[in-house]
Every structure is written in C-alpha cells, then in structure tokens.
C-alpha cells in the first residue's frame, strides 16, 4: 500500500480532542469499539523470567495464568470491556511457529470462552518484537546471522493468522543514531536518526504490516517511538535525575511524532501503541483512536504527566507489569483494577457530559510539571500537529518543524513564567533552538550534511535505510 501523507488536520480545533471518542472509531475483536464514546482499559504484562524455557512453559504462563487472571478479575470487577496487550518476547519472534503461535491461539481461545459466557467485550493487541540489529542489517537478506528482518514479518503473519485483533510493533529504525543523540545531547543527530532515518524505516515496515493485517482482517494499530523518545524521556526522568535535560526529551518526543505518524499514513487505523507519548499529536492530526498510559503505569516507570496523559486517550493502559503476586491478587489483576477504574471514571464523565471538564482537570494538574507534558497537552499537541501537516510531504521538514514548534512553545511559556525550567533545561532549550535554526530548508542538503557528520556513529550503516 502506498503512503498517503497527512497534509491537513482531521480535527477543526484542539477542543474537539477528548478522551473516549475519536473522529474515526474502530470496531474489532469480540465486540470491541475504540474511540466510540467510552474508554477501554488495556492491560499489558510480561512473563516471569524462566517462563521462556520452552514453548509449553511460555504458553502456560501467558494463557493459563496471565490471561485467565485478567479475565477473571475483569468479570469480578464488572468491567464491560477490556483489551489485552501482549508485547512479544524475543523467543516469540525468533521462532514464531514454536513459541508465538501457541500463545496467540491460546489467549484468543480463552478470551472467546469468557466473551461467550459473559458477553464482555474483549480484544487483544499483539505487539510483535523488533530485534533487528543495524550492525547485522535491517532489511531482508542483509542479516545472514539471525534473519531478523525476515522473522519480524513472519512474526506478524503468525500473530494475525492465529488470533490477534490488533497488530502493533515498537520498531527500532534510527535507534543507533538516536542513542548517540541522547548521549551527546545532539538534537540535530536526533532529527536525522528519528525524523529522517526512523521515518524511512517506518515507510519500509508499515506497508507490509498493513497488508498482512488486511489479508487476515486484523486491525493495524500503530507504532510508538518507544526505542527512541521513551529512552530520552526515561533518562530525563524526574526531579532527582540529571542525565538528560527534560527540554531535550520534550523536543525529541515532538520530532518523533512525525515519524510515528507514518504507520497511519501507510494505512494503520489505530488504536496506536500506549507507550507512544506522541499519541495526542497523532490523534490531533489523524482523528484515530489512541491508547495512552500515565498514572496507571507506575508499575513500569515513573513519569511527570500521569494525569495529563489520560486527556485524549481511548484506551488507558498500565504499560507493562511483570506477572507476580501482590496482596490484592496477581499483578495483572491489581493493575487492571487501577486502569479499569480510571477508564470507568472517564466513561462516566462522558455519560454525564462532563468529559471536557475532566479532560481539563487532567491537563491542569500536570500542565507545567514538565516540558514534555506541556508539549503534549491537547492545545499544544494541536499546534505541533499543524506544523507537521503544513510540511506533510517531507519527512525531514515536518520533523524539524515539529521540533522547532515544541521548542518555541516551551520557550514562550517559560518567558511568561508558567513553565519553570532549571538551568540545564534552559541552556539546553536555547541550544536546541540555535541548532534547529542552523539547519537548511533543503532536505537533500540536510541529508548530505548529516551523512558526513554522523558517518562514524558506531553501527550506523546508511544501507539499512536504502541510502
């Protein structure tokens, strides 16, 4: 399928953006509707170490323990709709027939049983793993050691043929350059790594995934720049962390949104991936349903936008939790409770016509807590979306525009005294603005410059991107 660029916003203004409804709702799975007037909890999990010992131990962990626990708790707590997300482990992509197939089929079989018995709306997102190594080769026939590029595609097929309702991936294109950018505080390298190279990789990967989904009548969900922007965000961390300036993380997030959008441009319909904190920008541009995570994902990581991230979500997720016992049941049961109750609150707000009030409360609580959260508040997300679509036909220019708009928004709020910044955040923001302004408006010139400047980054091979 060809890439169809977004050159206009699907929403007329930012106020239309609210949780629990999307301009283009999606129906799938066992009675599931995303973005259709209610918020769905999406529970994600990781098996215990050692569960991967053999295909049967892995199947048992995922199906008999994790999935059953989730479904039992969903019925116990009376949740009308639940989505599961299985983020595949390495063994499942490395040997899809042995490790992936029984898990995918087993989870779906059990879900059908509960759906038939209780009428609960259920669906499962399978997020296939992307173990591709740039040093070995990111495209088919390049990696002679592991054949990872071929295995990624096979894994998508196995998931779609055996029970996936939604297919997603956390694709890795450009990571070798974006890691360098984070370690060296180099926003120009980030723009090249994620805005340009990451976008090229998405353009290679996503049309194939969409085709596989269509063939199997599975929803092509979307991607996330977890490998890049979340690395940046996690390292920027909270108020005790001093590794990456939070202004840097904010700008990297907004540049990443232009890259993650490509899944939709290749035909994905949403809901996108929960850990893509670029989700509000994607939703503002595309009108597609969005999965997000925040305060209900403290089992996986701390963040400075726990309330805020709920404000435009259609599915509300816990990110991931290792399966283990807690006082209140297993970990997946406890965290399903956390996100399920929050989803119920949001849906109640919709039912009572108070959804935009709750949205604004979510936003108000965290709006000035961090530059990254500030940039993805729906009004700012909309502004960033606008500059992306104004430059929609060029992956470099739109990424640069997103980064510059983010920096300008933070700078303006800081100058007004609203968004306080520490010294490092301020210095870094100033440098980002100077650096982005110094770049050419001609894509070819930028690429020529970047290929020369970053040629010695370890493991970077332009051939992975057809360059």
């Amino acid at each position, binding site marked *: 399928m060809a890439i169809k660029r977004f050159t206009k916003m699907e929403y007329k*203004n*930012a*106020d239309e953006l609210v949780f629990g409804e999307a301009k283009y709702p999606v129906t799938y799975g066992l009675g599931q509707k995303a973005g259709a007037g209610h918020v769905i909890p999406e529970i994600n999990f*990781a*098996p*215990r*170490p*050692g*569960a*991967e010992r053999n295909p049967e131990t892995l199947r048992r962990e995922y199906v008999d323990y994790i999935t059953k626990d989730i479904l039992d708790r969903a019925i116990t707590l009376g949740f009308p709709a639940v989505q599961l997300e299985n983020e595949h*482990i*390495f*063994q499942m992509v*490395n040997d899809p027939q042995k490790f992936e197939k029984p898990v995918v089929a087993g989870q779906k079989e059990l879900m059908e049983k509960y759906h038939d018995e209780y009428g609960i709306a259920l669906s499962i997102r399978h997020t296939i793993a*992307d*173990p*591709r*190594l740039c*040093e070995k080769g990111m495209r088919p026939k390049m990696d002679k050691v*592991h054949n990872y590029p071929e295995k990624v595609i096979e894994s998508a097929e196995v998931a779609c043929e055996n029970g996936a309702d939604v297919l997603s991936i956390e694709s*890795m294109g450009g*990571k070798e350059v974006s*890691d360098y950018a*984070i*370690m*060296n*505080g*180099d926003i120009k390298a980030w723009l090249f790594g994620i805005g340009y190279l990451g976008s090229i990789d998405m353009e290679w990967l996503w049309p194939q995934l969409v085709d596989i989904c269509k063939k199997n009548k599975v929803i092509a969900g979307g991607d996330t720049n977890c*490998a890049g922007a979340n*690395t940046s965000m996690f*390292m920027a961390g909270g*108020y*005790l962390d*001093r*590794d*990456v*300036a939070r202004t840097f993380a904010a700008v990297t997030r907004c540049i990443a949104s232009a890259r993650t959008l490509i899944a939709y441009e290749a035909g994905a319909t949403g809901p996108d991936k929960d850990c893509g904190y670029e989700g509000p920008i994607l939703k503002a541009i595309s009108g597609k349903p969005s999965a997000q995570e925040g305060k209900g994902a403290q089992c996986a990581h701390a963040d400075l936008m726990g309330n805020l991230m709920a404000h435009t979500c259609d599915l509300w997720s816990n990110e991931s939790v*290792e399966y283990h016992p807690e006082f209140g049941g297993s970990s997946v049961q406890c965290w399903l409770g956390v996100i399920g109750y929050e989803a119920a609150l949001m849906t109640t707000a919709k039912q009572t016509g108070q959804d*935009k*009030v709750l949205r*604004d*409360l979510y936003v*108000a*609580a*965290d709006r*000035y*807590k961090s530059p990254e959260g500030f940039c993805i508040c*729906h*009004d*700012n997300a*909309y*502004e960033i979306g606008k500059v992306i679509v104004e430059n929609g036909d060029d992956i470099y220019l739109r990424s640069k525009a997103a980064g510059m708009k983010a920096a300008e*928004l933070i700078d303006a709020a800081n100058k007004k005294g609203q968004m*306080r*910044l*520490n*010294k*490092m955040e301020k210095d870094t923001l100033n440098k980002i603005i100077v650096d982005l302004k110094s770049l050419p408006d001609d894509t070819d010139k930028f690429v020529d410059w970047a290929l020369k400047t970053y040629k010695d980054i370890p493991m970077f091979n332009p051939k992975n991107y057809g360059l």
Partner: protein
Amino acid sequence: MRFVGGYERMLDTSSVNYDVIFRRYDIETETKEKPEAIAEKMLGSVSDARLKKVAEDVVFMNYKGVEADVRAALEKTKPEDVIEKGLVKGMDVVGELYGRGIYYLPHVMVAAQAMDKGIKTAEAKMKGEREARGTVVMHVAEGDPHDIGKNIAAVLLRSNGYAVFDLGRDVNVEDVVKVVEEKKPDMVTGTALMTTTMSAFPKIADRLIEKGIEVPFVCAGGAVNRSYVESYPLGVYADKANQGPVLAAKAVEGWDYKKIRTKWDDLVGAHGAK
C-alpha cells in the same frame, strides 16, 4: 482564558495554586556553584600550568584543543604523568560535577571523548602500552537490542582507566563465557531490558562456575532487580551506569562477589555512589 489553539477553555483554572499541586524540587535545590569554581578548587594542587590546562580541557570539553595541550605538556612531563596528573584529574572533576547534578550525561560523554583523545596522544609517546586499572568484559543479553546503558557504562569505565572488551548486544551465553575464559577479566557485566532476556544471566553464571571462573558478574537493566541478580552465584546488581567504576575498583582489589554483595549498600546503595 484562552489556549493558543484559540478556543475558550471550559474550566477556569486561573485560580489554581500550583505550589500545592507539585514542587520543582530540582529548581529549589539547584546549586549556585559554578563548574569553574569547583574545577579551580579541585585542581588547585596541580602546580604545573600545562598539566592544569590538560585537566581543564577535559573538564570543559575542549575536544579540539586537548591534543595540542597534551603535546605541550609532554615536552616537560612523561606521558604516564600527563595522563594521571592531567587527564584523569580532569575526569575526576567531571565526575564530581556529574555527581552534584551540575553536569548532565552529555557533558560526561563529551568530556570522556576529550580525555580519550588526550590519552591516545600521550600513549603514542609511551614505550609500552599503558597499564589499565583492570579489565572488564561487557555485553547485552541474547535477544536484547537495547544497549544504551551498556554503552554509557563502557564510556565511564574506560574514562576511569579500565580496559573494556565490549561484546556488543544480543550476545549468546557461550560467546560471553568464551571471551571471559580468554580475557580473564576482573569483572563481567551484562545488561537486559526484558524479564525473558535477563534469564541468560544465571546461565552465564552457571557456565562460569562450571569452568572454575569466579568473577563478579555485574548485571543491570530495565527489568533487572537486586533480588533476582542475587539469586544466582557471581551476580552483583547495579542500577546506574556510574556505579560500574566503583564496583570494578573493588573487583580489582580482589573482592569476590559475596563480599561486594555484603558491602553493596555502602558502595553503591543508600550510602554509596549515586
């Protein structure tokens, strides 16, 4: 009140007192000390002006100028001293600035690059190879492509004078064991992001024990935790990259994994390096 998107906000939040909603502890506790003042204080004992300049090149990330300044220092000072009394002193200041939250990770990375360039220039004047403080073999677990933590730790170990054999990422158990047998390192490290890739660590530990190799095996990464790492022999937990040099120093001193575990809280825990 209007948002920049140009629509009326439904909820008037102008009365919100953000001081009772969250506190910017990072800003409230931000030090007023300047890197220049700290460097001056720490480098005060360096009396040779050329060595001091070399140290400052590292502190202030003078990647372009460090080579020439090291050459100038080599005119009067032997290479080993240019490294130890100039470049390493400078990196000590960088470590202090990083520890105090004045420098961030990119400063450390660029300073380490300047130091590395200076060391290469000095080493070219040495008769033999510079003796490393110790040897570390590093890898990322099989099936795991996430290597930024390992890469940061490698830079910090190298800049602290350790020889690093970096096996890269997605490294299988036998390859790690083979290199450890060959290189006989003072310490081995493994990182992993996922619960089902970190399970390679006990396998590596078992294989090393089988071969009679008892070396501290420092394990770290997203899903990795202390109780897991201490559930298998040789395992020593680390939760930050900058703990690597502290643990390596003890391994070189001859501490075995049991002793490091016992003293872990003092070394890198609540009372140790942050």
